[in-house]
């Protein structure tokens, strides 16, 4: 049974419908990538899964439990973590305080979790007393991912982790995603950078006009001429 299933989900903001029936799943330990053109509803899917939007129709199941419309503060307790595309750090808090907030619901020491984040991102260890708002885009993305890892999630959701980063940093972030996944964390990510993200994903979904159009193995999608022509820009 997959860890996460989204079943024919329909949702939107106010009166505006964005998702017109999205179906997807993420298995235990998988990396799944959602790609597609701008305005396809990729970020909306993430917000929907994380309870920031309520589904108009359809259902979301996590670990065999119906979590449609469950509030984010409850979802984190079930083992879901989410890194939004923008505003994903607390700018006036230090790196270390950002991580503390990631582990807020856990009582007791967070030293072990923090150590693990610092091992993954040694740069953050050097800058643990620096305020996150004063850091570069790449460093902020590390803080954001570190915060999301503080509760040892079973599924990490990343919205455009490479957006706005220099090419070298993009590669670094993708390497880290693979490294995180190797520790047994399933990853669901939304990416503009379709080629790179599908190359490392086990499976992918191509989303357009609020529906998933093509599904398949990451590599197969990359080689699918229709996908290439439509969404990957050749």
């Amino acid at each position, binding site marked *: 049974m997959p860890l996460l299933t989204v079943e024919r989900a329909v949702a939107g903001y106010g009166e505006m419908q964005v998702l017109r029936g999205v179906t997807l799943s993420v298995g235990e330990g998988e990396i799944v990538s959602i790609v597609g053109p701008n305005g396809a509803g990729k970020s909306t899917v993430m917000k929907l899964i994380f309870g920031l939007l309520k589904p108009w129709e359809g259902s979301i199941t996590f670990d065999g439990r119906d979590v449609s419309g469950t509030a984010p503060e409850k979802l984190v307790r079930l083992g879901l973590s989410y890194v939004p595309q923008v505003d994903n750090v607390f700018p006036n808090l230090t790196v270390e305080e950002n991580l503390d907030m990631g582990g*807020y619901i856990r009582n007791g020491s967070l030293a072990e979790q923090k150590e693990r984040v610092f091992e993954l991102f040694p740069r953050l260890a050097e800058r643990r007393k620096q305020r996150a708002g004063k850091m570069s885009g790449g460093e902020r993305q590390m803080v954001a991912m570190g915060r999301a890892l503080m509760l040892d999630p079973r599924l990490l959701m990343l919205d455009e982790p490479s957006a706005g980063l220099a090419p070298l940093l993009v590669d670094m972030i993708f390497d880290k995603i693979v490294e995180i996944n190797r520790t047994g964390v399933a990853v669901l990510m939304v990416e503009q950078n379709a080629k790179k993200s599908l190359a490392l994903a086990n499976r992918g979904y191509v989303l357009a006009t609020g529906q998933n159009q093509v599904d398949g193995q990451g590599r197969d999608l990359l080689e699918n001429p229709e996908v290439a022509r439509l969404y990957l820009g050749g």
Partner: protein
Amino acid sequence: MVQSTGSSSARPMERFRRAAAGRTGMLVALALVLAAIVVVAIVKGVPGTQLLSLFVRGVLLGGTLALGAIGVTLVYAVLKMANFAHGDTMTLGAYLGLVVVTLLPKGAPLAPFSFGYEFLVALLLVIPAVGLIAFGLDQLAFRPLRARRSQSIMFAMAALGLAFGIRSLVYIFWGADFTFFYTGRARPAVELFAGVRVRPDQLFILGLAVVLIVGVYLLLERTKIGKAMRATADNSDLARISGIDTKRVILWTWLIGGGLAGAGGMLYGLDVQLRPEMGWWLLLPLFAAVILGSIGNAYGALAGAFVIGIVWQMSGAFINPVYSQGIAFLVMIIVLIVRPEGLFGGRK
């Protein structure tokens, strides 16, 4: 901010504005305002001792203002609303304190202060009580608005309504006259230094204000709930995503903001007198202090409170004190023209 092309062509005013817009420039500007006040006062023949006294008096007033201003700014930071009921929350604190002082058997004054143990007991009761009342009023008036995602004008109107409501209750129960915690008790002043005279009560007021402010600082910086409050102020969506219980954060925001307001009201009442409009008239200076120090920034509110307190008192040396609040506003307006984000803009 619009960058002008080529610094050589920049008009002198523009160049001045940019130079003054830095934090250091701001501090220099404030020092100049202070110097200007001193110069005007000396030209008008105000003795130096009196000026110094007014300065000390301004610092004392700044401490009381800070207790109110920190609450205004915390509520703004966490809930993104301007709480116009905050001044009247201070009034409520003062009058609840009066109830406790009146009910308790009178003890001897704790020399050199004018108040007895009852006042201290009242403080200990009023701080949590007003904190809880403030939270209760939030649940009654503001929570439904948040649930409906109402516009900020609705929050402002609800807050004004609460302000009038609280004040009316004070009128109903205690009448419109001014009163004191201890009627008819002498409050002699002692010489502090260089002919500056203050009442011992005022030193107590400043001391307690400093203790409370340090307490809030430690709470915000060191405790888990304090960090969660700062996180929620920074980015409330991300706070929810991180699993932070925002309801608890809101409770603590009101407990702290309301508690400090209650204490501030009692201290202001002890310093001056109790009047049903006492807090209402403090509201504008409070907001001036908060905006001056960058709204949402607790340390900015602290700095702003002292600036407003000092300017307010010192300008009283040469203009009718009725207008000196106006001078404090003038300073605020100048600061906002030069540096719209306030003294601590961009920081929280």
